[in-house]
């Protein structure tokens, strides 16, 4: 290929969080809060763990009919936005650049540093191994929520799916567990973003310009 002297092939300079990432992030933030808030109300109507009721102030919607309306409306936003995010992350190589590779030694090292309260966030453009792991876990949990959600919503039309998960009640337990994982992630994620406000600002403004090698560079 005859590249001119000023064209750097395979190198791309862009913001840390390009605008599609930021838009999808905040749509997802709103959708997930609605999904959890309304889901807790639906759970309360027929509890899975005896004695575990979620307090009313966490619930979105005044009663079951409203909980369901919120849940079955926001699910489309959550699902379509999540799908767009997955396609974007794979197509642009963002997942590969940001989340891989992770080594066990790296995870251990980060945990030890974190235990000594050495939160090294000097460089917000790089995720440490624990961050990478958590992001992968929460993405997998979100996909599991959509799958188990369909198994609960359509246990007859999609009976193969419900059966594959172990049945209707098991699907509900998976759905509750997925919610707990996402809610746990949310607490850590928001706490750390507040501790290191630069990361929060980066998700609003796009953050510093970074240079990444694109797929073409490997040719």
């Amino acid at each position, binding site marked *: 290929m005859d590249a001119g002297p000023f064209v750097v092939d395979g190198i791309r300079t862009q913001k840390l969080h390009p605008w599609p990432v930021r838009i999808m992030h905040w749509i997802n933030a709103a959708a997930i809060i609605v999904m959890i*808030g309304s889901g807790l109300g*639906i*759970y309360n*109507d*027929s509890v*899975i763990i005896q004695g575990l009721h979620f307090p009313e*102030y966490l*619930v*979105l*919607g*005044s009663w*079951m*009919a*409203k909980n*369901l*309306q*919120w849940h*079955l*409306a926001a699910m*489309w936003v959550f699902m379509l936005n999540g799908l767009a995010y997955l396609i974007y992350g794979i197509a642009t190589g963002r997942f590969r650049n940001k989340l891989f590779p992770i080594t066990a030694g790296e995870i251990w090292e980060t945990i030890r540093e974190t235990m000594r309260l050495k939160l090294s966030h000097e460089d917000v453009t790089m995720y440490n191994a624990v961050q990478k792991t958590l992001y992968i876990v929460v993405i997998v949990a979100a996909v599991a929520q959509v799958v188990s959600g369909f198994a609960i919503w*359509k*246990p*007859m*039309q999609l*009976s193969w799916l419900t*059966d594959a998960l172990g049945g*209707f*009640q098991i699907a*509900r337990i998976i759905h509750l567990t997925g919610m707990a994982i996402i809610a746990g992630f949310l607490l850590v994620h928001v706490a750390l973003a507040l501790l290191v406000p630069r990361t929060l600002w980066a998700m609003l403004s796009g953050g510093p310009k970074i240079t990444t090698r694109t797929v073409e560079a490997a040719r």
Partner: protein
Amino acid sequence: MRSPFRPDRVPDPAILDDHRPALRALERRGFLRGGLSLGALTMLTGCDVSDSSSIGQALKAVNVLNDRVQEVLFSSTKLAPEYPESRVLKPPRFNAYYEIEDVKPLDRATWRLELAGLIQDKRPWTVEQIATLPEREMTIRHICVEGWDYIGQWSGVPLRTFLERVGADLTAKYVVFKTGDDYPSSIDMPTALHPQTLLATKYAKEILPDPFGFPLRLRTSTKLGFKNPKWITAIEVTNTWVPGYWEKLGFNWFSGL
């Protein structure tokens, strides 16, 4: 015979003309209220927004959209899984908008199933006549909108067979039910014609006990529990959509499984 679905006294249409200015004023008020509901957005954290707000309207619109999505997802040939008889719950779990003590049993001798709408032969049916119809048995999972479930064994005439027998218009959109416990309900025609949609008269091979809908109830494998009215007293085939008891309160109408 007069349709049991129509009010006894139909209002005079001229009333509309008499009150046109008042109606217009109402609409204007609604518009103002809609504008105010922008402010209600800020109260989202308070967790409930009244139905008249734009958010309430948007949620209702998606609720209707979900009906359409479910009509597309519905398969008229796919059967729900059936289960071994050993798993049948006896007696079944009771559920209604009131407690089991408040069930008002229907009298076998005076009970009639009335027919209305797009049906050729509207002669009412007695318990004995229903019993002569061909029967199908199914052992299926009952799933409640609340999240609980159980396996139940139901038998009765397939609704499709019954509708064909009375000459119903099978191209109509809806089948509407009236019940002894004032629990109106309606389903789409494709669901009505599904092989696992029965007018059930028996549970676990025994005549339906009073609390579970004697002498006739709907049992479909393709919808949530609340879409199965008990103590049916009238059936209407129609192209007019009529929401049921829970749908009027905001639950999803199609509620397919």
